[in-house]
């Protein structure tokens, strides 16, 4: 572990650490463009230059490895001048079209200009080099060569993360630009990360561009629910509307990235098919009902079915807390009821890759094991019981067992037919589905982006999600729904508060022992083995 001195203070860092990393990890800001902690350093922007004793020239801190006894100065006049010069060079031919640029507010050119340069421009707009302004790299990513500062982060991302190498730097000198290699499309499963790594407004997302000024956005940390990897994300939202997902760094899970499918699920998550109001079938017809009436009806259906005629299908799409609260309610009031959890392969799709994407497209399969929900009945047993007329009340969370579109849903036809034999089918879910269409009570639930709780990922990491925008219409968070029902059924086994529910879980369930809600923090924690 080499010790080095930065601005007069000594620090010890692991061998092989770059000087810039040593600085950043110790709270010393070094401006940078081409350096990205998740990519190999290339040292081309020259903004991160620092003074290192015994080195004849300023050294790029991103490509210089911290050495024993190194004496680094990050704030000398020489360093400041070099930074100002680099900023000036970068802006000489920059189009400065901030008024129509999506990057405004999160643009490193703007930020660093204010911090390190602040000099007037020397080159009038009409003398700047003109380059292509709108190059379609794919239907997802658009490139503006004039704004590009040629840091090659995007090139290195494609080379190093998906390994697909679609992008390259073309031409020489001042007319250089980034382009697609011959015959290529920017078509990898992670392509939109180039928009995030781009420090300026050169790469923009086709779906987000011109939608919103980013400085109006509020950000809530969450976890993608596109697959069981559980990539950490930020939800960016304003005025009750979600605008985008962005990957949130977590070196234990997703590094700095997320897949395009996960990212683009933002739109579908909130848009079509959301269930807005509670409804119940009256004389064969679905009618909107106030929450009080609906919950009374569900409570009555549970009570009247009692132990033997009640079945509950818990879900890998629901939070751990919601599943736990249902389990507690059933255990305390209806210990003999049928309880099953989403079959392990229900959301399996293809193979996944060895980067992030997993085959399991549900976010919380691991909760089934952690909460011991697989030891009860199986879906098949419940369908059998339904077919034999044994079930009077069925509660189904999230999963669309009635749909035959999912090839893993082998029981779809039987499930659909058997629903006819169940007196009360209660569907608790955010989205319309085949199942909700056949249900007798529809309980509209908040989507994960509107919910606080945890998901447990494929590596058994428990990760918090938090509510960003409020749920649309009258929908309620899943945990809220169970706890209201529990109250009506005369038990206080559930609380509507995710943190409190989590605390109960850590006390009652061995898998969660030692964890705390606070302790999960923004990076999550592993289940006890």
């Amino acid at each position, binding site marked *: 572990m080499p010790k080095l001195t930065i601005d007069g203070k000594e620090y010890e860092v692991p061998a092989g650490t770059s000087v810039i990393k040593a600085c950043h990890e110790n709270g010393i800001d070094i401006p940078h463009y081409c350096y990205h902690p998740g990519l190999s350093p*290339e040292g*081309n922007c020259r903004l991160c230059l620092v003074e290192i004793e015994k080195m004849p020239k300023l050294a790029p801190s991103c490509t210089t490895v911290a050495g024993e006894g190194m004496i680094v100065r990050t704030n000398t006049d020489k360093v400041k001048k*070099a930074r100002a*010069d*680099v900023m*000036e*060079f970068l802006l*000489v031919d920059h189009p400065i079209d901030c008024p129509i640029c999506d990057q405004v507010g999160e643009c490193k050119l703007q930020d660093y200009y204010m911090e390190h340069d602040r000099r007037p421009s020397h080159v009038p707009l009409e003398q700047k080099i003109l380059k292509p302004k709108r190059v379609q790299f794919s239907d997802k990513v658009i490139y503006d060569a004039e704004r590009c500062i040629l840091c090659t982060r995007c090139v290195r991302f494609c080379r190093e993360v998906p390994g697909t190498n679609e992008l390259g730097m073309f031409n*020489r000198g001042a007319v250089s630009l980034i382009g697609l290699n011959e015959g290529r499309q920017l078509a990898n499963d992670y392509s939109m990360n180039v928009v995030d790594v781009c420090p300026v407004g050169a790469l923009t997302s086709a779906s987000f561009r011109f939608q919103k000024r980013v400085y109006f956005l509020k950000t809530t940390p969450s976890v993608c629910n596109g697959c069981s990897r559980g990539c950490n994300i930020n939800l960016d939202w304003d005025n009750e509307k979600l605008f985008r997902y962005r990957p949130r760094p977590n070196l234990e899970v997703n590094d700095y990235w997320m897949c395009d499918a996960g990212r683009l699920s933002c739109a579908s998550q909130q848009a079509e098919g959301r269930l807005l109001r509670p409804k119940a079938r009256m004389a064969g017809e679905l009618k909107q009902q106030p929450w009080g009436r609906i919950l009374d009806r569900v409570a009555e259906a549970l009570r009247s079915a009692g132990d033997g005629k009640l079945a509950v299908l818990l879900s890998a799409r629901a939070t751990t807390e919601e599943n736990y609260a249902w389990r507690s309610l059933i255990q305390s009031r209806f210990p003999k009821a049928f309880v099953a959890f989403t079959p392990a392969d229900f959301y399996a799709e293809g193979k996944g890759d060895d980067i992030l994407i997993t085959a399991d497209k549900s976010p919380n399969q691991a909760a089934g094991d952690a909460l011991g929900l697989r030891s009860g009945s199986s879906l098949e047993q419940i369908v059998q019981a339904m077919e034999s007329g044994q079930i009077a009340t069925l509660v189904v969370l999230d999963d669309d067992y009635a749909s035959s579109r999912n090839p893993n849903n082998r029981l779809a036809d039987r499930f659909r037919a058997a629903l006819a034999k169940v007196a009360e089918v209660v569907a608790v879910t955010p989205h319309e589905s085949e199942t909700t269409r056949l249900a007798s009570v529809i309980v509209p639930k908040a989507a994960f982006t509107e919910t606080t709780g945890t998901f447990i990922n494929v590596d058994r990491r428990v990760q918090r999600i938090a509510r960003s925008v409020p749920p649309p219409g009258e929908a309620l968070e899943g945990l809220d729904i169970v706890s209201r029902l529990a109250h009506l059924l005369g038990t206080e086994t559930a609380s509507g508060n995710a943190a409190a529910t989590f605390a109960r879980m850590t006390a009652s369930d061995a898998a969660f022992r030692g964890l705390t809600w606070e302790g999960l923090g923004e990076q999550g924690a592993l289940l006890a083995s």
Partner: protein
Amino acid sequence: MEKVITRNWGKPGSATIDGAIANGGYKAAEKAVKELDSKTIIETVKASGLRGRGGAGFPTGLKWSFVPQDTGKPIYLCVNADESEPGTFKDRFIMENDPHMLVEGVIIASKALNCHHAFIYIRGEFFQQTKIVKQAVKEAYAKGFLGKGIFGSDYELKVTVHNGFGAYICGEETGLINSLEGKKGQPRIKPPFPAVSGLYNCPTVVNNVESLCAVPWIINNGADAYKKTGTEKSPGTKLFSVSGHVNRPGVYEIPLGLPLTTFINDPAWAGGIWKGRKLKACIPGGSSVPVLTAPQCEGVNLDYESLAAAGTMLGSGGMIVMDETTDMVHMLKILAHFYAHESCGQCTPCRTGTHWAYEVMSRIDAGEGRMEDLDLLIRIADGMAGQTICVLADALAMPIKSFVPKFRAEFEAKIKRKAA
């Protein structure tokens, strides 16, 4: 002075292998392969004081000694024959007149480095020279001087001749390596230096054509004999390619330490300024190095130390001589254009600085400059110098920082003429 590099030039058949052998060629290579071990060769070259002739002047033997021999990876030698710097055309003459001297140098250097595959990277525009070198290599293979078991030993050496595609930056050693690997020719960040991680991430030495051509003579005659010519710190001979306003432009081998004015004026060398005019300025070592005014040329010797003391560099020995009629503003504009055109574009200060400097120079040259432009040029040069991955940025910064102050009156006159 005994000629080292040019000793066979002009002799009949010297570009053929039989001619080369008749001239004493390949003796040193045979000796190195059969009798000398790696260490002895390196020590001899070190002792000769030979310094790299590609521009940087780094001691050749020392460079070879940096190559780690225990990595288990192959070791490569790359011959830098990319010669593209304005004013420099000496390697081209070597390849045309005595290609076998280069092949022989490659054999000896390879033996010293334990290298079994050497690459000769020739500037793309050198069609003719490439043909000549390829022919020489072919002849050497045919004679058993290259390939398996050369000179009857168990030493094997392959030589591949490779062309560039017309980029000056591929002469920078790591740009050359990238280009050889089939990548875009742009320099790599150092460290790691090529000696440790070069071609295909293996230990690699990049040497200039002329540097390697001095080696056979040193092996034949010994380090002490080499040091008899030249100065103490700049031993040996050096090729200078002189162009511009002289009576005898061309390539000359001189003893290092020769007075600059002697070189320019002596009928044996450049033969004086043409048309009886007066000297105005001289760029002694290739277009990248600071310019000297006529008075500054007095008392300066052509060796590394003396030129450094005069605030310039020996560089590649590409001397450009300018007479009193030369338009220094136009000259600097042409240089700026060259570097702006050749910048690989990866470093911010070089990509933008070279282009911006060219724009400013263009308007001054067109009579549309402003007085502030002169300070601006210096500021641009300051922002470029020493701040980039390779020294191409410095290669324009140095001319700017010498042309502008040294010929300021001329720049001002051009600016004022428009105003008037």
